């Protein structure tokens, strides 16, 4: 049987059962579309977050106080160890030749007021090195001055949102801010940074670290941020940091060190797993569509028993009948896959329009693999009905009225 005729006959058969054909195509398309959309979401999220980290472009090392004993556990968000990270610890790190900058960090929250307006604000205590280590840029004025740590001046740097809320329409530089019962002069306004590793700098007020320690009555540091000279230097720096601190902490290895790589790597793994599982769930719907194809084709074979028997009587071989029914199944899955692609693309465009800040992209491999899987599903689930049709006994089929 000529290939062209197989195609024509298969199409004619599908055409004569329009409603059924349309429903199957719809089912398949939903399966393909959902796999595509969910894969796009997962992949884009992973890409976005990994990219966010990598765009920091720093050789950033973060030191946290405290350490979990078991391996593989997450570092404690707030130090659980009795031993604090201190400013002296931070200063000691300068002994490492691989470290370019060290920014000690404390955090706290306090009411901040100026000229009659007041709001609760997050306060960062750090040094001038924070600007370099966190790649901050100034919109106005300058960052914290480069003085010795214990000669802290009563100055502060504020974020855009703070500026808008406390100094709307007025110049902020040179104004005095009251934090709790202390006063700080505004010497700089940060440019709008948006969120960066979970910190919204627009909402931040930055003061010298010793002032912050006095304000919040604590000697312990929240973090120490370190920038190394290069990526290669990072490993060496991490080792040196570990040994310096261990020495100072009576031989206890009680800090956690996070490098950009490790964070990126962890997020990468988590998001890949998430994407796979979510896509896997969507793939279930594809499998269901395949089972639907099989079911409907089995019914079709039963209904067309007389026709199949007749074709066999007229001289159709088993192979020809196999090919006919498999072609029908292939058509259904192909049409379903193409419609699913279109639906998926449409949904992605729609979601992108609602969330323009989140770059959505469907990776090419996902597109190709979903179409391939749809086609394979249709063919595999079409095998059983095709086999049934091919093995039909023509006499039995013809004598059925």
């Amino acid at each position, binding site marked *: *049987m000529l290939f062209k005729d197989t195609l024509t006959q298969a199409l004619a058969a599908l055409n004569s059962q329009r409603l059924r054909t349309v429903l199957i195509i719809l089912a398949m398309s939903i399966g393909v579309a959902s796999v595509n959309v969910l894969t796009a979401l997962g992949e884009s999220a992973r890409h976005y977050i990994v990219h966010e980290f990598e765009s920091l472009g720093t050789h950033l090392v973060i030191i946290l106080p405290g350490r979990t004993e078991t391996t593989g556990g997450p570092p404690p968000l707030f130090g659980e160890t009795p031993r604090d990270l201190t400013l002296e610890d931070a200063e000691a790190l300068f002994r490492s030749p691989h470290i370019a900058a060290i920014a000690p960090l404390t955090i706290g929250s306090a009411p901040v007021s100026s000229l009659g307006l007041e709001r609760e604000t997050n306060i960062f205590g750090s040094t001038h090195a924070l600007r370099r280590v966190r790649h901050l840029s100034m919109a106005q004025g300058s960052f914290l001055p480069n003085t010795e740590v214990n000669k802290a001046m009563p100055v502060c740097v504020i974020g855009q949102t703070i500026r808008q809320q406390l100094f709307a329409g007025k110049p902020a530089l040179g104004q005095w801010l009251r934090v709790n019962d202390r006063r700080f002069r505004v010497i700089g306004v940060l440019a709008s940074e948006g969120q960066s590793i979970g910190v919204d700098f627009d909402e931040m007020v930055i003061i010298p670290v010793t002032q912050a320690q006095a304000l919040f009555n604590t000697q312990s540091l929240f973090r120490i941020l370190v920038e190394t000279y290069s990526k290669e230097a990072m490993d060496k720096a991490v080792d040196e940091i570990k040994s310096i601190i261990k020495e100072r902490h009576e031989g206890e290895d009680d800090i956690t060190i996070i490098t950009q790589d490790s964070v990126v790597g962890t997020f990468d793994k988590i998001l890949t797993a998430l994407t796979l599982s979510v896509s896997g769930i969507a793939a279930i719907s594809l499998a269901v569509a395949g089972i639907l194809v099989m079911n409907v084709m089995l019914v079709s074979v039963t209904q067309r028993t007389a026709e199949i028997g007749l074709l066999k009587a*007229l*001289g159709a071989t088993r192979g020809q009948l196999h090919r006919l029914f498999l072609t029908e199944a292939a058509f259904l899955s192909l049409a379903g896959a193409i419609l699913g692609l279109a639906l998926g693309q449409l949904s992605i465009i729609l979601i992108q329009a609602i969330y323009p800040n989140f770059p959505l992209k469907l990776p090419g491999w996902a597109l190709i693999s979903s179409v391939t899987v749809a086609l394979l599903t249709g063919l595999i689930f079409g095998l059983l009905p095709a086999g049934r049709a091919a093995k039909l006994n023509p006499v039995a089929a013809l*004598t059925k009225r």
Partner: protein
Amino acid sequence: MITLENIHRYFQVGEQTVHALNNISLTISNGDYVSVMGPSGSGKSTLLNIIALLDQPSSGRYLLNNQDVTQRSDDELARIRRENIGFVFQFFHLIPRLTAAENIEMPMILAGIAAKEREQRVVQALAGVNLLDRADHRPDQLSGGQLQRVAIARAMIMHPEVLLADEPTGNLDSKSGADIIALLEELNRQGVTLMIITHDQTVGNRAQRKVRIVDGQLK
């Protein structure tokens, strides 16, 4: 030429074994006009199915043009059937979703013949049964007599040597029935071996050779 030697056919019906054909030996020469008559359940249709290569005998030999066609594979039988045997049924058995022309061209599609050639031969076939004006009609738009004529055109489209008819007039009124018999006899005159199964005496008696079958045996 059809030669049956000691053909037996057993069927398993539930727990019983039915001996449908009992030691049938029969020779039909090229160009013969044979009728097979017998009461209901005598094995007429089974005999036809075996001759048509739609069914295999349980034992015995079947020679078609001196070729042994017993115990061949399904696909081989399909090919031999397609090229050598045409058949017409009581209930027409046309494909309802295809037009008359598409029904007639089906054996050619299965044989892998190109579309252009198919078109020409279908036109000829329709002309031969006086149905050119009904080429694009579907079976539900045709009368009984017209349906049977389409079936005959389909049966003859591959120019087989043998034409088998199972109760061809069973579903037709007497006028249409007579037309069909006339058509079949015309084909026989042109050299086609014709074998008609029937329970209608008037039809059966017209044959040049009359074979009677009772309880699976030839009388």
